[in-house]
């Protein structure tokens, strides 16, 4: 990864230009060409380094979401994880090192659908689902400084 790559990743996690030609503006700031900036971003996206150039929306302002967790016996984990990931409404799904080992985030247009998805997962997996909705958010999201 060269200096231009690093600056593109690190310096534009927030404050993306709201001008008609944002990539050209970024290129100007970086001393590069628009074509270079677009090519690098396309490569980052193809490689999975970035998920997108876009908006991070505050939870529960558009739609509703919740974190949820299930204690799944190791032998059952693959099955239950696949079942959970199968929902369009599930956007994150991780195994974590704890007895309460499967952690996922469900996002839906309204609480009725959110509740339905959680109930279905409980019913289909055969395990209790703990809903852990956000009550208060203390973090101001400016992205993540990759130089720390």
């Amino acid at each position, binding site marked *: 990864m060269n200096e231009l790559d690093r600056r593109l990743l690190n310096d534009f996690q927030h404050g993306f230009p709201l001008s008609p030609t944002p990539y050209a503006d970024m290129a100007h700031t970086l001393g590069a060409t628009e074509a270079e900036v677009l090519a690098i971003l396309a490569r980052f996206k193809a490689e999975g380094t970035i998920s*997108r150039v876009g908006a991070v929306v505050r939870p529960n302002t558009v739609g509703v979401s919740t974190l949820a967790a299930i204690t799944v016996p190791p032998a059952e984990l693959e099955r239950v994880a696949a079942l959970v990931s199968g929902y369009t409404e599930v956007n994150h799904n991780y195994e974590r090192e704890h007895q309460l080992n499967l952690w996922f985030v469900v996002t839906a247009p309204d609480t009725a659908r959110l509740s339905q998805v959680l109930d279905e997962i409980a019913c289909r997996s055969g395990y209790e689902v703990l809903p852990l909705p956000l009550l208060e958010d203390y973090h101001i999201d400016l*992205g993540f*400084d990759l130089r720390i």
Partner: protein
Amino acid sequence: MDLSLITPVPPTRPALDDADRRLLAAIQPGLPLVTRPYADIGTRIGLSEHEVIARLRRLGEAGVIRRLGVVVRHHEVGYGANAMVVWDVPDEQVRELGRCLAGFDFITLCYRRPRHLPQWRYNLYCMIHGKSREEVHAHLEWMVNRCGLQSLPHEVLFSRRRFKQRGAVYFAEPPSVGSAGEG
């Protein structure tokens, strides 16, 4: 399932109109990598480039959009260690401690969530990213000392396997979708 605890962000949940919703849905998979991305999005949803930009600016000012920019996948850029740290904090201290934890630059999320007694006693969550487990532990020790958390019960839940990670889908949408979320 009882989700009565889920409240829209109080007290000023911003009113979104149909055009805002169409716009947020249209940018969920990301802005197109073209010279005039806002014009491109506008063409798809029947708004002018100028109006797309004005609405995005307003949604940012209203706090609906927390940030607009490059959304990095930590694991892929060398931050392979990720731990969710959960704390059992007396209710009257949770806000103060949450704000303290949220101030460190290695913290990407810091939330209060409900306890689920008796199975789950924890009510304050933060996410720490590091290049190694050792680095995450060093960050944690630093936080504990700086915020005075030595006496509070906590657990560190490193991520082991990632089964799925992508942006949230807020609306039923044509084929390709994806965007932000609780993370």
